[in-house]
């Protein structure tokens, strides 16, 4: 909502400066989003008198003037010809800044001193073109008066961001009322003096409402014999100041009154209305109508149309029709002022994408009691500006007039909820200043009837808000609540989420956050099978772009896109993870599932480049290592790493799924070369993905802690020659299966292929650490146990000791 300082001042007599007024409005909840000072920098452009004018000695087309600005007489060189000695003119003195950042400076023109400039309308930004300088009427204003003030053009434009509840402030009067209430001043409402002709309105025009549920009130006036013409300058300037284009005297009046009092109005060319009749009815499904922006519209049964005896002439509350609009030749006018139900107007405007000043007001709700007042004001202004005769009376069809209900109100409740302690009388005063009708009953109870224009006030709480607002939020003391202790510790889920984020970061991983929506093609790029459940993504009905049209079922695409993008910026050493939800459709009517998942990607150098170590590249085991760190941290035991049935997006020979018992809790592997190509990733990437919900499920909360043995350990190494396809982990499993309590630790410390090892075989070196909790183990004891283990290995796994 745009409004100017001067316009507001017409209705309330406040002393505040524009800056103070802006602060006051903002603290009333009418947020001033921007402020534009019209005529800023023009204080040095003043009314002046040409006391002497003579020819410039060195230039034919220039004159030398002696100009009186009220305090001194200055020399000014001027090029215009349209003035004479003794004229009152406009002088831009040194220091003035004209539109276009044109600074006026003392200068010499062809050898003659000039201390300013005599201005044209164009130079002041008051007109598009102008011939010569401004010559004001004699004694227009005291010499030295700033011209913008003298012309009444000095003003400030406020752009106010209104919240949807304050439809009453979609007018200058509405905002003026709030200012008046805050400052304890009276609003000066515009006075309308109606001059009506003898002819009764009902004998000329007729109005029928077929749908009073959507249009509970429709009022009209009739004016004949008027002349359509351009609006007078004051009206054009007023509308221009708030960003409305002038059309003609009649249309401009409807816009002016709408801005002034908040009632949208529409003027029809009455001669173009069949039978000069108005019928308000629901549109037919598929009915066609051309709005005055010359757009054909297809209507539906939910839309309300204003019709004449034959056809629609306006889309109710939204826009008039091309077939009945005011034209240059129009002489008779039917002026409409009505109330339409917000929901219906909103539906129509939204469906047609047609948002107008009128629909904006009807959608938010206007003041049904103001319908005829606005109509009278507009009709008399039209007669004043366009001439003609107004028919006698107003045709007001208002079948179900309703009174506003009184709201029971407890002043002490207001104090209690806000946390203040205002006197009862002050509370009642505040409501009275808001034009509420406050009734104090003998039993001390209070009822309040809010003013008709405040449709947002319906309940006690609405009144309490008004008390807080008018008294000022800044006057409410900040207190700390006295409340019962409620403190739940974080859930296990929340705690583990936080711990894992810390763990991953401490292991060198950088957290990323991608959008929850992705492209439908992502599943294909991952080579997911046609029947993979991850292809069943939840779709958005109204995505912004196709690449963000489905909710992600896996975090991998985002991770891989991030990887590719970073590599393209030459960030090649990457350790990324994302811990976010995925979105899986629910069964039938169920809500979708939103389990938390973790994915990670590693690529490039393991520890970053450096002088102190070889630059080693990450591989599968770095990714697996991170997963193992996570599993170890959560104390998830009994995990197996299986190669069969690999994920389609991983290298089948360099990936595995992670099972806790038989339940798959994630996977780890090198990215499949095709997937790498699909995502335009330059270098090999090693990824892992973990199902967070399952991690929580299998995490053991209570760790069993044992005191360490106090006896010395002894280690034995074995080198085993095993077929390439045999998993080295089997050796460790087999050793552990012996369940010898003296085995403290088993570790594979070397895997070797090549010289000295036959083709198709690998040499695996295993270190076993023996230790007893009871005593120092003798050499012979250990050797005997060790030999037994070696024998068992060669026996069970059919492998040989090197």
């Amino acid at each position, binding site marked *: 909502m745009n409004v100017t300082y001067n316009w507001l001042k017409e209705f309330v007599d406040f002393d505040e400066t524009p800056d103070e007024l802006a602060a006051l409005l*903002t*603290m009333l*909840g009418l*947020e001033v989003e*921007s402020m534009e000072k019209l005529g800023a920098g023009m204080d040095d452009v003043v009314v002046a008198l040409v006391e002497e004018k003579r020819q410039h000695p060195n230039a034919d087309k220039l004159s030398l003037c002696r100009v009186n600005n009220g305090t001194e007489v200055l020399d000014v060189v001027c090029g215009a010809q349209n003035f004479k000695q003794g004229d009152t003119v406009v002088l831009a003195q040194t220091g003035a800044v004209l539109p276009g950042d044109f600074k006026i400076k003392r200068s010499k023109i062809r050898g003659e001193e000039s201390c300013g400039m005599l201005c044209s309308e164009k130079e002041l930004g008051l007109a598009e073109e102008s011939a010569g300088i401004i010559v004001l009427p004699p004694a227009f204003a005291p010499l030295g008066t700033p011209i913008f003030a003298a012309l009444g053009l000095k003003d400030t434009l406020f752009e106010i961001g209104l919240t*949807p*509840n304050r439809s009453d402030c979609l007018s200058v009067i509405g905002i003026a009322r709030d200012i008046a209430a805050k400052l304890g001043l009276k609003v000066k409402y515009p006075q309308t003096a109606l001059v009506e002709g003898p002819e009764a309105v009902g004998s000329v025009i007729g109005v029928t409402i077929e749908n009073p549920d959507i249009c509970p009130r429709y009022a009209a006036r009739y004016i004949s014999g008027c002349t359509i013409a351009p609006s007078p300058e004051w009206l054009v300037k007023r509308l221009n100041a708030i960003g409305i284009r002038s059309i003609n005297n009649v249309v401009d009046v409807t816009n002016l009154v709408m801005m002034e009092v908040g009632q949208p109005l529409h003027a029809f060319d009455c001669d173009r209305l069949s039978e000069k009749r108005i019928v308000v009815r629901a549109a037919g499904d598929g009915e066609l109508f051309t709005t005055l922006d010359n757009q054909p519209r297809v209507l539906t049964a939910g839309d309300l149309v204003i019709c004449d005896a034959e056809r629609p002439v306006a889309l109710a509350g939204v826009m008039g029709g091309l077939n009945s609009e005011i034209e240059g030749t129009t002489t008779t006018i039917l002026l409409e002022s009505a109330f339409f139900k*917000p929901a219906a107007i909103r*539906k129509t405007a939204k469906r047609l994408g047609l948002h107008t000043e009128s629909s904006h007001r009807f959608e938010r709700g206007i003041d049904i009691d103001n319908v005829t007042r606005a109509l009278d004001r507009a009709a008399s202004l039209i007669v004043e500006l366009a001439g003609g005769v107004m028919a006698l009376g107003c045709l007001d069809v208002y079948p179900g007039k309703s009174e506003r209900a009184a709201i029971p109100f407890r002043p002490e409740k207001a104090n*209690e*909820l*806000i*946390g203040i302690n205002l006197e009862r009388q002050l509370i009642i005063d505040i409501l009275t200043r808001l034009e509420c009708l406050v009734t104090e009953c003998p039993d001390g109870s209070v009822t309040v009837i809010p003013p008709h224009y405040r449709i947002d006030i319906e309940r006690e*709480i609405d009144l*309490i*808000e008004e008390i*807080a*607002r008018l008294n000022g*939020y800044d006057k*409410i003391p*900040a*207190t*700390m*609540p006295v*409340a019962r*202790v409620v*403190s739940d510790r*974080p859930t296990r889920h*929340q705690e583990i989420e*936080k711990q894992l*984020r810390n763990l*991953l*970061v*401490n292991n*060198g991983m*950088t*957290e*990323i*956050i991608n*959008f*929850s929506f992705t492209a439908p093609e992502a599943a294909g790029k991952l080579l997911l099978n046609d029947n993979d459940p991850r292809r069943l993504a939840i779709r*958005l*009905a*109204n*995505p*912004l772009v196709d690449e*963000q049209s489905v909710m992600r079922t896996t975090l991998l695409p985002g991770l891989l896109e991030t990887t590719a993008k*970073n590599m393209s910026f030459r960030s090649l050493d*990457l*350790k*990324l993870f994302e811990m976010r939800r995925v*979105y899986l459709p629910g069964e039938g*009517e169920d*809500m*979708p599932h*939103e389990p938390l998942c973790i994915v990670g990607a590693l690529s490039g150098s393991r*520890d*970053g480049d450096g*002088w102190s*170590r070889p630059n080693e590249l990450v591989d599968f085991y770095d990714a697996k290592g991170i997963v193992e760190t996570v599993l170890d941290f959560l104390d998830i035991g009994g995990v197996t790493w299986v190669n069969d049935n690999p994920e389609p997006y991983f290298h089948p020979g360099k990936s595995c799924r992670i099972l806790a018992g038989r339940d798959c809790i994630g996977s780890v592997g090198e990215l499949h070369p095709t997937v790498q190509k699909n995502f335009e990733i330059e270098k090999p990437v090693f990824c892992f993905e973990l199902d967070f919900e399952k991690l929580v499920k299998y995490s053991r909360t209570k760790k069993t802690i044992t005191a360490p043995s106090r006896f010395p350990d002894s280690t034995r190494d074995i080198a085993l020659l095993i077929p390439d396809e045999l998993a080295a982990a089997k050796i460790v499993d087999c050793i552990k299966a012996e369940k010898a309590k003296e085995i403290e630790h088993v570790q594979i410390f070397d895997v070797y292929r090549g010289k000295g090892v036959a083709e198709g075989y690998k040499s695996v070196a295993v270190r076993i650490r023996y230790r007893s909790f009871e005593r120092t183990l003798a050499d012979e004891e250990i050797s005997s146990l060790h030999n037994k283990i070696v024998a068992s290995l060669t026996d069970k796994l059919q492998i040989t000791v090197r």
Partner: protein
Amino acid sequence: MREQLEQLRTGALQSIATAASVEQLQEIRINLLGRKGELTALMKGLGSLDASERPIVGQLVNTVRDVIESALGGAIKAAEEKAIAVRLQSERIDTSLPGRHPLKGTKHPISLVIEEICSIFAGLGFSVAEGPEIEHDWYNFEALNFPPEHPARDMQDTFFVENNLLLRTHTSPVQIRTMLKQKPPVRIIAPGTVYRCDSDATHSPMFHQIEGLMVDSGVTFGDLKGILTVFTNQLFGQKTGVRLRPSYFPFTEPSAEVDIACVICGGKGCRVCKNSGWLEILGAGMVDPEVYRHVQYDAEDISGFAFGMGIERIAMLKYGISDMRLLFENDVRFLRQF
């Protein structure tokens, strides 16, 4: 024997004096005092002496041993010190070379801000609640007093999914879910991801909010002001000015926008605060009775406040980030700075 001892003493002291290293001195010790050492051998010979001579010679042996021990001790200490001095003299590294450490990992700034805000509110007795991101229209709008076809719905451009589901446009539905699950007192904050179909330099279709809700008997608007003042002071510094001004949300009344004194210019006016000196950081208000009706709370018995803030905005202010899109581009050159 006495001469032998005397000879031993002289010889020992001489060789101690000329020994060049700790190792040589240790060798001397073993040769003299060890199990098979010369002095030990002499001591073993004491038994063959006259009983009258034994104490005197024994005394002498002890004296000689003490002398040697003391000389050895001194010499070893000196030799060790010398050896350390020599080692310290000879060993030199270039300490200007960078240290050896694993690559640094970082949390996403959104996570950092959420953690910080949650921990501030944990200190004020608020626990963390969560809710679904794909939400029912009822929780996201209707129970929060946004009737169908209400203009307030225009404040939040919504992504729709089928079956009356949508992507939640704010974290406020968690209020409803929490109140339906438990009776007062309620004191929660709910961080989460939210969505609006809007995308430009200042709007992201996905962003994050933190919702707060406190319901108990006798909670006032002044309490809301108090809690938010404590919170903003902890988040932005002890003396951050806080201003509440009237606003409108369907689910709170009275409602407020909460501004803090601009953290960039300190309130003097700059580009970031559009010369107002204030930055809007959250919306808040007293829970509207209509919301209580939907969750079967009795508005006559209890009162409470709710507030919500955008995490991206706070992250941008805290870290001086000017373009919100940086937060979702995941460029490691940006992320590694946190």
